[in-house]
């Protein structure tokens, strides 16, 4: 049942995103949001499109595979999740999430927020959802895009918006108590899962492109694919890509099934996908020759994302330390198999 639904979503999102050039970037977000794909995995009761994490992962995967600049990870994976967990509804338009916690104080019954918040895609957003600490309360709050926060724009290596919002007593449009366990660490883990899926998809795109290129491109009178050195590179690339893909999918499944050790799965997946990014990008560029280094070629859109996403929500060193810390009170092998030991 799930497999059919996921295949349908994959086909629909691919139809929207599998286009070339300007037309794609201009219309992708509009068409995705009209179809409700930007809020897959967010319960309908919270204003989302319904479906589970597995379905959401498909949308995020396809968008990353095509390297389309749309914030599906930020809207559904993060903002929609935060809002739904706190029992709030997703406002209309584009709602993205803050990676940091704001400071809140109540004044005449109004919640006012302050702080410097890293907010990917803030410049395009209609609303920003953030965690906030107000006295002893942990809150999830919504800030309207026009609430008077100062916007400092910045981009990651792929040119994706990685903005900073500076809040100085900005009025929240809505807020609710955060449920136990919903904190910045949980958000980091959630983001790491999203980026793992995206890194794996981008890696797959490198493999697909390389495979196509080496069979088409001829040098010394034969296709590049005829050279053993090229074949060995391609096989090493495929191995790396498959490892990234399996780790991301297994982590999605672990979180979806609420496994006791889902945290270990996400840590391992983000570590694997982040660590694999270098080799995938390097082999990809090597196989594409100078052509792939040109901005005219699609490869750069994918490899710059690999380089950017591996750092976001903790790079491999962060998650290696996390796993090492988990080993302080767990034996190694039971940690790996997800048993009490």
């Amino acid at each position, binding site marked *: 049942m799930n497999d059919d639904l996921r295949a349908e979503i994959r086909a629909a999102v691919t139809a929207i995103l599998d286009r070339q050039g300007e037309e794609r970037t201009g219309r992708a977000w509009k068409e995705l949001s009209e179809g409700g794909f930007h809020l897959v995995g967010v319960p309908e009761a919270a204003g989302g499109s319904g479906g589970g994490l597995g379905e959401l992962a498909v949308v995020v995967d396809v968008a990353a595979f095509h390297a389309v600049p749309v914030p599906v990870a930020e809207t559904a994976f993060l903002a929609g999740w935060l809002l739904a967990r706190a029992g709030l509804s997703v406002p209309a338009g584009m709602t993205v999430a803050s990676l940091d916690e704001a400071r809140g104080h109540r004044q005449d019954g109004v919640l006012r927020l302050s702080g410097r918040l890293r907010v990917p895609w803030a410049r395009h957003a209609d609303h920003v959802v953030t965690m906030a600490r107000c006295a002893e309360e942990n809150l999830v709050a919504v800030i309207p895009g026009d609430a008077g926060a100062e916007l400092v724009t910045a981009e990651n290596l792929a040119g994706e918006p990685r903005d900073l919002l500076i809040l100085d007593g900005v009025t929240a449009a809505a807020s609710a108590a955060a449920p136990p366990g919903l904190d910045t660490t949980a958000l980091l883990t959630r983001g790491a899962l999203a980026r793992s899926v995206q890194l794996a998809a981008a890696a*797959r795109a490198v*493999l*697909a492109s390389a*495979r196509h290129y*080496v*069979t088409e491109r001829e040098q010394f009178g034969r296709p590049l*694919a005829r050279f*053993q050195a*090229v*074949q*060995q590179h*391609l*096989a*090493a690339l*495929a*191995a*790396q890509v*498959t*490892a990234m*893909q*399996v*780790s991301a*999918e*297994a982590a999605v*499944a672990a979180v979806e*099934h609420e496994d006791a050790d889902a945290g*270990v*799965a996400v*840590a*391992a*997946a983000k*570590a*694997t996908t982040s*660590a694999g990014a270098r080799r995938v990008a390097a082999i990809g560029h090597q196989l594409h020759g100078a052509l792939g280094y040109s901005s005219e070629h699609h490869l750069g859109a994918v490899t710059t994302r690999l380089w950017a996403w591996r750092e976001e929500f903790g790079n*491999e*060193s962060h*998650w*290696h*330390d*996390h*796993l*090492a*810390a988990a*080993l*302080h009170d767990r*034996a*190694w*092998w039971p*940690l*790996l*198999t997800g*048993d009490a*030991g």
Partner: protein
Amino acid sequence: MTTSIHLPPHRLTEAARRLRDDVRSFLDGELEAGTFVPRCDAWMSVADPAFSRRLGARGWIGMTLPSAYGGHDRSPLERFVVTEELLAAGAPVAAHWIADRQMAPSILRHGSPSQRERYLPAIARGECYFAIGMSEPDAGSDLASVRTRARQVEGGWEITGTKVWTTGAHFAHAIVVLARTDGSPADRHAGLSQFIVDLPAPGVEIRPIRTIDGEHHFNEVIFEAAVVAEDSLLGERGAGWRQVTAELAHERSGPERYMSTVPLLRAWAEHVRQQGDASAERELGGLTARAWTLRQMSLSVAAALAEGRPPEIAAALVKDLGSRFEADVVETVRRLAGIEPRKHGSGLEGLLAEAILHSPAFTLRGGSNEILRSVVARGLGVR
């Protein structure tokens, strides 16, 4: 095709998890009783027939065989769980490993009713061990160029030729031999057949091949016009290559392809916990992430094999990554543990020595990594 290397994640059943608990408590009991000490690469090099028989008595050998042949009708994924627990413990399983992994499924699939009766129940009891005669002095990775010949003679077959690097032939009860029955080496894959030869046998000489650690795990097996019975042919005459390829899927897909040095890694993890060295901890975290991913891949490959989706390409790719992981474990521990390896030593020093001395084999056995990468390249449609 890219779709053929898609490996959907597999989730183990509750039954498999309960089985894991049983295997763990058995192994804990064995360790407490001092029947074995964890060793690296033990699936290849530490044979203990008494231990194998105890596993057999618990129903953990020949698990997937039908009960009619002494098996236990278990799923391949349940077998996977038992396998990975034994490997993680570094248990002495080399005696029955090849018989259980490759020959039981192969004899079940291709064997005659009398071959099944004769070998399968004994394999499942942990009493019948197999060697596999594939490589030859002039045929290593290029198995299709085997020169060993089997000639039909009065009342059977006469086998002449030399096999090398045959694991465990010195204690095996039988050897499976790949030999040419028809055509010439130019025919490559056509005209090859498989034979089961009981050991010891007249006309079959077994000589040790000692490896760089001075140990005897491998053999040269020389067939000098050895005559074997008519019914020692396994499967179809001329279909040997197809049969061997199916066996290789079992040989290459198991968790032993990334777990050979896990006993060293576990011992080092304990060492790091006691030392509390932050830089060692980070590297331990890195190896843990890689092991986690390799385990998920290995589990997916096992699931694919169980569902009848031939995992040839995926298995090749997991072995490529897995064998490099095995070597990186050795290198990391060597750099960071602050000890020197000691041959036949105890604890970490001994495990490290053994792992270093075995490491050249990791990327050679079961098909060299270069060959495996060319299998992957072919699967991607570029060869």
